[in-house]
């Protein structure tokens, strides 16, 4: 969007401007995000997202901690997709250390990442319904999310901060009967996905609130560095799992769901269809899980990486999650930088909100699906 285009969106008739604070403790901001809105009547003329309320300095913390400790820290970035954080940090470190990961561990990683993606999208699905006033969908989504969290609890002992994916493998093998339980969940979940469409996706009231709201063109989305389901909703076919396959993603068949015009509904429906694809991937993983060890050799108790730089990126639940790791040969990273998808996706808000109605702010903010733990790190 150019400057003149922004000008055009402003209301022609001048009236008194008013400054409205949205957040930081607003339930619809999904955390602690403050948006300073300047409004004229009902139209927004200026929007300033204010972040940093949840800053914990984890990038700096990593510089005095060992590599095993950093995996624990990484859980706290995007706490809804903590497996992805574990994964990307381990990938970057493994690149520097040059260790091999056993075949079974690779498959288990993909299994966990996709289960976590489902859990994360379910939370989006539920809370987006709540943002727009539909409460029932939330209860349904959280019932299913609880089942995924139960599966995680059985395998790694925690429900949110997993610390499951470790350097050169995973923490431990699956417990007995876990595969059957996972299969049971998938059978249950596939039927529920149909309910979701009835409850929310094609509900006329929901469609009215989202269908022609918050449209982002493919060019804008690329210019602002969007990634993940948000970018794909604008019609750009880009998925790290497909185009730069990591772990064992190249062995599975799945489609990349695309949206048409990049409206709020497209972003919403992209995620719902991604859950279908995640189910497909998980079924393929369960079908061909190889036997073998789950933790590779060659990682010391206090590991030291070779001096150098490594960048690793994965397709997280919210977009391209990247890690730049610089090592000087010591037992802790020299510098750690996180390319957090939520942080990048949030930036467009200052232009997107201009010219929109006050009542659409929450619909737009909710559809971007940010996690403030990752925005502020």
């Amino acid at each position: 969007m150019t400057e003149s285009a922004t000008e055009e969106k402003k209301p022609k008739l001048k009236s008194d401007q008013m400054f409205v604070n949205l957040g930081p403790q607003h339930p619809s901001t999904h955390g602690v995000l403050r948006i300073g809105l300047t409004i004229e009547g009902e139209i927004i003329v200026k929007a300033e997202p204010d972040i940093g309320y949840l800053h914990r300095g984890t990038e700096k913390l990593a510089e005095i901690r060992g590599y095993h400790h950093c995996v624990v820290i990484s859980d706290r970035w995007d706490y809804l997709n903590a497996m992805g954080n574990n994964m990307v940090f381990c990938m970057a470190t493994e690149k520097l250390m040059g260790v091999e990961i056993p075949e079974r561990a690779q498959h288990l990683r993909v299994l966990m990442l996709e289960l976590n993606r489902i859990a994360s999208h379910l939370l989006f699905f539920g809370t987006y319904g709540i943002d727009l006033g539909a409460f029932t969908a939330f209860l349904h989504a959280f019932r299913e999310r609880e089942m995924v969290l139960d599966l995680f609890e059985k395998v790694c002992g925690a429900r949110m901060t997993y610390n499951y994916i470790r350097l050169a493998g995973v923490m431990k093998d699956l417990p007995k009967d876990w595969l059957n339980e996972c299969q049971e969940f998938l059978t249950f979940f596939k039927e529920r996905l149909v309910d979701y469409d009835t409850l929310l996706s094609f509900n006329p009231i929901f469609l009215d609130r989202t269908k022609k709201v918050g449209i982002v063109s493919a060019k804008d989305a690329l210019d602002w560095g969007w990634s993940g389901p948000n970018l794909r909703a604008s019609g750009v076919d880009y998925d790290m799992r497909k185009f730069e396959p990591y772990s064992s993603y190249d062995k599975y068949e799945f489609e990349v769901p695309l949206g048409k015009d990049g409206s709020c509904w497209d972003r919403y429906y992209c995620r719902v269809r991604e859950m279908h694809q995640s189910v497909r991937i998980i079924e393929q993983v369960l079908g061909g899980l190889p036997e073998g060890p789950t933790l590779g050799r060659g990682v010391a108790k206090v590991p030291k990486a070779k001096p150098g730089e490594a960048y690793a990126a994965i397709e997280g639940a919210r977009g391209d999650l990247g890690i730049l790791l610089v090592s000087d040969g010591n037992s802790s990273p020299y510098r750690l930088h996180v390319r957090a998808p939520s942080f990048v996706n949030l930036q467009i808000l200052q232009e997107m909100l201009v010219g929109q109605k006050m009542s659409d702010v929450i619909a737009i903010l909710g559809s971007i699906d940010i996690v403030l733990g990752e925005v502020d790190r």
Partner: protein
Amino acid sequence: MIDYFAEIWNTFNSMLKGMAITFKTMLKPATTVQYPTEKLVPYEGFRGALLFDAETCISCNLCVKACPSYCIQLENATNEETGKKIAKVAWYSIDLGKCNFCRLCEEACPTKPKAVWHSLDYELTFWNRDEMVRCWKKGFDFVGMYFNRKEKEFKKPDGQVQIQTVQQRFIY
């Protein structure tokens, strides 16, 4: 005109469909539990509050090094006659306010059964900050005691409601 009524019908119809799904779940048993009266027991291997056993600990310092938030401290015991260090702890403390519940200390522990391990206890509550720092010495039970600074003595943590006081140690 037809569009107008069609839209009304569509909206009404979708509401009915939604209500049908709600009605289906209405007849099924509840998925929630009434928490303070009913309690869920976590699965085997859950990472709850840390427990410690002063008898099995060999005071090797591995858990101290494994902890990402530096919440564990310990001191070696000494033989009273010779004055040399022995493989036992004089005292061992965990700051549960700092604990990440990541199980790195339990994995690092070389003894069998583990000297420090996660229980299934998720009801970790404290009345004050003193209670967050648990201390263990010879003769203290697995839950540990905290040092009350006002009364200058070790006390049992009252804040922690234990669903299972002593846990079996799972061996991985």
